[in-house]
């Protein structure tokens, strides 16, 4: 599992105004499950509608837009929520149709089932 930031095609000529340019790298857990991979990401402050998970060319992209308003006049600040962004290069093909993502308590859980051809095939050995 390689982490990679894939150079994205951007229209350089037109600067994207008013877009939060800074982003946080969220901590992740990645582990094998029975039929694929599970990715667990801490995304506090992100509503489930604002999570973007996609797999393109074997690159898993996780992006989240944090929406957070300070309830009153700020006195003291330890954290600031901006957008989250992280990419991983997947080593195996993933069945895109069957990707499942779930958001609970600010934690995103993604299940990436392996594509059929990536699963190991059991070959029966015939004994003569």
């Amino acid at each position: 599992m390689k982490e990679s930031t894939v150079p994205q095609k951007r229209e350089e000529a037109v600067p994207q105004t008013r877009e939060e340019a800074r982003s946080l790298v969220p901590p992740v857990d990645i582990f094998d499950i029975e039929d694929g991979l599970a990715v667990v990401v801490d995304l506090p402050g992100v509503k489930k509608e604002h999570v973007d998970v996609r797999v393109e060319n074997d690159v898993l992209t996780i992006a989240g837009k944090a929406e957070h308003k300070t309830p009153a006049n700020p006195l003291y600040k330890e954290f600031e929520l901006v957008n989250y962004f992280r990419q991983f290069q997947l080593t195996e093909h993933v069945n895109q149709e069957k990707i499942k993502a779930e958001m609970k308590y600010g934690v995103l859980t993604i299940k990436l089932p392996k594509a059929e051809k990536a699963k190991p095939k059991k070959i029966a050995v015939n004994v003569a």
Partner: protein
Amino acid sequence: MTFVTWNPWREMEALRREVERAFENFEARPGDGLRGPVLTERFARSYPFINLSEDKDNFYVEALAPGVNPDSLEISIGPARGLGNTIRIAGEKQAIRMDVKPEAYHRNERQAGKFIRTVTLPVEVDGEKVSADYANGILTVKLAKAEAAKPKKIEVKVA
């Protein structure tokens, strides 16, 4: 042989740097807001991160605590029961429930465990009027300022 004269200003400068280094993780410097939810050992004692804000009648404590079961959260006001200026937030961030063998991990960056954090507020709050809300991994506690701590408006008489 180089001859170096003792320079008190250099000593002062070195001391200043030392002090700055010791405090660099506490200070909120401009542009230093990008401390994410990553819990490194260095910050473990100040987990969860909190933001504090106030309006006329209330204090709001927001804590960045993803993946915490709301049932495990305990909020109490001290030091006296019901009245005081410290708030204690305790809870537990659960480890992954699924049975994962250690060798199945590719990455394990999220940390889990129990936490307690005590925050001292600038004024006393009323422990009876506390409400807490946990949404999207952020805990927001609303604390009513004690009557005595509220700003009083003093009318100016015009003679």
